[in-house]
């Protein structure tokens, strides 16, 4: 009995090692090929670089030039940080307002926000990009309005779920002591929302950073974020420079992996909380 249990443990361990290799393998292939000449990638992606195929950093310099990767990185970083910040700010206030103020209007708003969570982007993409163009918000600053609007369904839903669970007595005490709603919100309510805010921040960061269609349709012709820059390498009808592609894929993954390893505890917790509540 004891022996067989130990055996199954090692079999399980072996399976998990194989699975982990299966997860790492594609990433390793990308890294390896980013140092190979583009002529040798399509046919022999699994061969290690050797004297004839090794090209040093050529793919990186080519890729950086063709995609404008650094500016794409800058746009991605700015749009993600600003969108997530304003989503957190706007939706925490909105959620507090619609939870604490009862009435027809606030419940209609709540249902509309919940409904927006299930509507696929394809439903609004055409008209949304037209409106963005008409309002002149089809630029890296204006797109934040679009992200706040499209992201606020889930965020408001999660914030108001949490606000419903905190006792109203604290807020009432603050107001009786003479604090106005602004002070009450920013000094009493907001600090209590911290853990929900971290969860929402993680989910929204993952969405905005990786999003392709919205930046492509609204600002894509002038300003490219990382996903748009990578897809841009495909070009029109010509063949893809797979060398540059490999190098850019690696550069695109690197910050994500570093970020993940640095805060994986929060990320896994956040994703878990988001899945169960959403």
């Amino acid at each position: 009995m004891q022996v067989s249990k130990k055996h199954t443990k090692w079999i399980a361990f072996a399976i998990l090692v194989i699975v982990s290799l299966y997860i790492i393998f594609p990433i390793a292939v990308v890294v390896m090929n980013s140092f190979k000449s583009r002529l040798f990638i399509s046919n022999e992606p699994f061969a290690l670089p050797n004297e004839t195929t090794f090209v040093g950093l050529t793919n990186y310099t080519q890729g950086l030039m063709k995609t404008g990767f650094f500016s794409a990185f800058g746009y991605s970083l700015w749009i993600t940080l600003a969108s997530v910040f304003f989503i957190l700010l706007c939706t925490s206030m909105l959620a507090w307002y619609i939870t604490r103020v009862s009435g027809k209007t606030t419940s209609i708003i709540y249902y509309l926000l919940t409904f927006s969570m299930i509507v696929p982007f394809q439903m609004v993409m055409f008209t949304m990009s037209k409106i963005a163009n008409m309002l002149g918000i089809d630029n890296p600053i204006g797109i934040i309005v679009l992200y706040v609007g499209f992201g606020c369904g889930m965020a408001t839903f999660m914030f108001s779920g949490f606000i419903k669970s905190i006792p109203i007595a604290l807020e009432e005490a603050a107001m009786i002591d003479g604090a106005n709603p602004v002070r009450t919100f920013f000094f009493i309510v907001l600090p209590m929302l911290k853990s929900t805010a971290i969860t929402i921040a993680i989910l929204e960061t993952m969405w905005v950073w990786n999003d392709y269609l919205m930046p492509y349709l609204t600002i894509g012709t002038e300003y490219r974020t990382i996903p748009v820059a990578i897809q841009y390498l495909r070009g029109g009808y010509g063949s893809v420079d797979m060398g540059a592609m490999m190098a850019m894929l690696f550069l695109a993954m690197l910050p994500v992996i570093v970020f993940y390893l640095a805060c994986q505890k929060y990320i896994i917790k956040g994703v878990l909380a988001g899945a169960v509540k959403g």
Partner: protein
Amino acid sequence: MEKSIRRYFALFALPGLICFFISFVIPFIWGLVLSFCSFTTITDVTFTGFENYIKAFTIDNYFTGAFVFTLLFTFVSVILINVIAFAFALLLTRDIPGTNAFRTIIFMPNLIGGIVLGWIWNVIINGVLAKFQMNIMSDTKFGFWGLVILMLWQNAGYMMVIYIAAIQNIPQDELEAAAIDGASGWTTLTRITIPAVMPSITICLFLTLTNCFKLYDQNLALTAGNPNHGTEMLAMNIFNTFYSRVGFEGVGQAKAVIFTIVVAFIALIQLAMTRKKEEAL
């Protein structure tokens, strides 16, 4: 208190609501209206009734094809992802050395964006097929299974994390009681573990269902719908209807409405099922 908060509507509610109306409410209503109209620019709109909806199915076979492809892909992927994720979760809740490291690694692909993922697997699948003088464009089945493998690689870790949390919440004494009664591993699994994690199974099934059904980025980067629209999923078919031919924007919008109705229907079933579970508890 309510009254004094109400006075601050402009500060608390308005900023979020303005954004919400600009990017969701107005585009949604406008899109719904346009699906019943014929137009190329916003100024030459004429009402045409259900013509766009009929055209969605009759101008070519691609929309129906995409529908079938998406359903098949979703069906196969949802089952594979959940069975495999559940199996990993069972393995990782048995105090095997290195559990945390394994969990970290298996979850990682979930954070990588769809476009990047699609291109990674494009290289790998083409590399394998090159040994047989073929590539991913040679046959639709390569694109189909390529997408399945890709989604499995990306989603299994996510679902696994949810299953692990659920399995760890099963009361230890129930499992011990089963062991004392001499229950086999299989009996414990089917009689105790699976019933106990049923709510998580529902969550994971619907998460993977919507993830697969709405897939776009991975589809675009992996095959872009090739060969000859054979691996085009619904989201991509809608995009192409809108943007690759002039004059079919109304048809694209009608397809998007149909797509939305299907997605909303799935969400409603999920809601009903979770409600029922909560009542049963």
